[in-house]
């Protein structure tokens, strides 16, 4: 007699399971941060709709908070990201600096009308660079006169971190978000193996190599992403905050690690730095794939599975 309820229960249980909406791989492409954002997650269709709404909300919020000139320096999001940016600023000895905004402007990268500023212009604007010159007050950050922020080296990473956390919470059990090269992936890929992430070659068509990672973020800084040429010299958008000129010596830096925001900032810091290993010592969970000026691939910091093509 005791068995009957059990059987009945099993029948109901099976019925319940079969009625649950099936999880399938869902993809979507959104345009944010001046680039294309690719989302691929395992979830039910209704959950996915919810997820897309949430991502759109988060990305719009990040754009609102961190677009050049429109920063609301009192918002908690800005203050939280400032702490991370300042940490990388200090840990990199100033190689990563969000106050290069005025440099980005005089070089024309903000208005997408690139130009070569005069040495005097650069010298003047170097006075307005330096995270240590920012005043942290109770109500928020205070920007001294003429100083401008450029969150481009870290904000997309934060967006990806926040969005992936939100998706996990909303039932996306596996997936990735790739916001124009700032990536976070969790769980395994559709073939149930780690995600295969191609890294673009900085000089050729095709790929440098393939990362095999899961539950990790990744981001790349390269001299090929935004640049212009004058008289055979390439001027790109990653500035050395000390000279005011584009940083020399590398073609691209990809950083892999637990948080996309730190990957983003560290890839910029290492691109500028002469001593990447010194920075990475302070970030034991992060590893860098560096392409030097001669095109040689060098690995620094923590090693992640990476196949060179």
């Amino acid at each position, binding site marked *: 007699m005791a068995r009957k309820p059990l059987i009945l229960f099993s029948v109901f249980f099976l019925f319940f399971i079969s009625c649950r909406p099936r999880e399938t791989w869902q993809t*979507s*492409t*959104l*345009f944010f941060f*001046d*680039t*294309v954002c*690719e989302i*691929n997650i395992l979830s039910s269709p209704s959950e996915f709709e919810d997820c897309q709404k949430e991502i759109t909300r988060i990305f719009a919020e990040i754009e609102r908070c961190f677009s050049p000139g429109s920063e609301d320096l009192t918002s908690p999001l800005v203050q939280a990201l400032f702490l991370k940016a300042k940490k990388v600023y200090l840990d990199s000895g100033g190689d990563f600096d969000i106050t290069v905004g005025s440099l980005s402007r005089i070089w024309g990268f903000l208005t*997408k009308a690139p130009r070569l500023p005069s040495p005097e212009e650069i010298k003047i604007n170097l006075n307005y660079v330096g995270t240590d010159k920012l005043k942290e007050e109770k109500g928020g950050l205070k920007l001294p006169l003429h100083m401008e922020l450029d969150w481009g080296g870290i904000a997309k990473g934060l967006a990806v971190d926040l969005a992936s956390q939100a998706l996990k919470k909303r039932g996306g059990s596996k997936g*990735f978000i*790739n916001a124009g*090269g*700032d*990536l976070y*992936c969790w769980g395994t*890929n*559709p073939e149930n193996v780690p*995600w*295969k*992430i*191609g*890294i*673009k*070659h*900085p000089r050729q*068509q*095709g*790929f*440098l190599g*393939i990362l095999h990672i899961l539950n990790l973020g*990744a*981001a*790349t800084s*390269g001299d090929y992403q935004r640049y212009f040429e004058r008289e055979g010299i390439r001027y790109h958008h990653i500035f050395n905050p000390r000279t005011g000129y584009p940083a020399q010596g590398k073609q*691209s830096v*990809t950083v892999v690690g637990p948080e996309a925001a730190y990957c983003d900032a560290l890839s910029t810091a290492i691109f500028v730095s002469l001593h990447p290993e010194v920075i990475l010592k302070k970030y034991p969970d992060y590893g860098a794939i560096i392409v030097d000026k001669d095109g*040689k*691939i*060098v*690995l*620094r910091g923590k090693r992640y*599975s*990476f*196949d*060179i*093509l």
Partner: protein
Amino acid sequence: MDRRTFFKSLLSTALVSPLLASPKPSPLRRDLFLIEDSPHKFIIPILEEIKELGLMNGKSFAFLTSPAQAEELERILNKNHWSYVSKNSQADIYFSFSLLKHPAPSSFTLIKDGQIADIRTQNLFLLWQEMNQKKNFSSFLTIASYKKPLPNSQSGSSASIHIDGKKIDRISLKKNFLKSYSTKNGRLTVVAESGKAWIQASTCPQKVCVSSAPISLPGERIICVPNRFLLEVEGPRFLDTIIG
């Protein structure tokens, strides 16, 4: 020496290859084991054969440990146009060394995917015989670890076109193709020819899309942000996504 004795000799040593000890051996890993006191006398023909068989690409090497024999090895490799790189950079082949507890006849074998692969082809068989007939036993083990070259990524045969995140067209890369697409913010012209696709013209201000290199590999894409336009090569993806 037959295979069994070869492995007995190997088992009597503590294998020190850090690559072997890595927690997740990659399925692409290959290890060449060479028992020989003067590895530099034999390494070149063996490596050449492995390359010949298409089992390895590239010509850079690194030492994970550096006993005295490594110097000779470096000299002979350099002479044969291999280039030395530091062990922290990405080398095509990594050498590590160990001592056998019990000296054994000179020999070599290749392990791929955890299994023995016989590379005693015609060329190498004579070499192997020569080694094996030596009177002196060797106790020096050279381990050369490298990765199998990835299959050449196949070009895709079609590309998809997305506007505003929605797929609106699919084009073949096998046929010559030219078509204009209207978006909310302008117009673009897509061209396909001999397996490649690119954007020939666009009304957008910066023309980043027009200056993007033609694409041919599955997953490669050209994006025009002002037009919210995406051109992507379809096909069996050997990648999930692309960064950089």
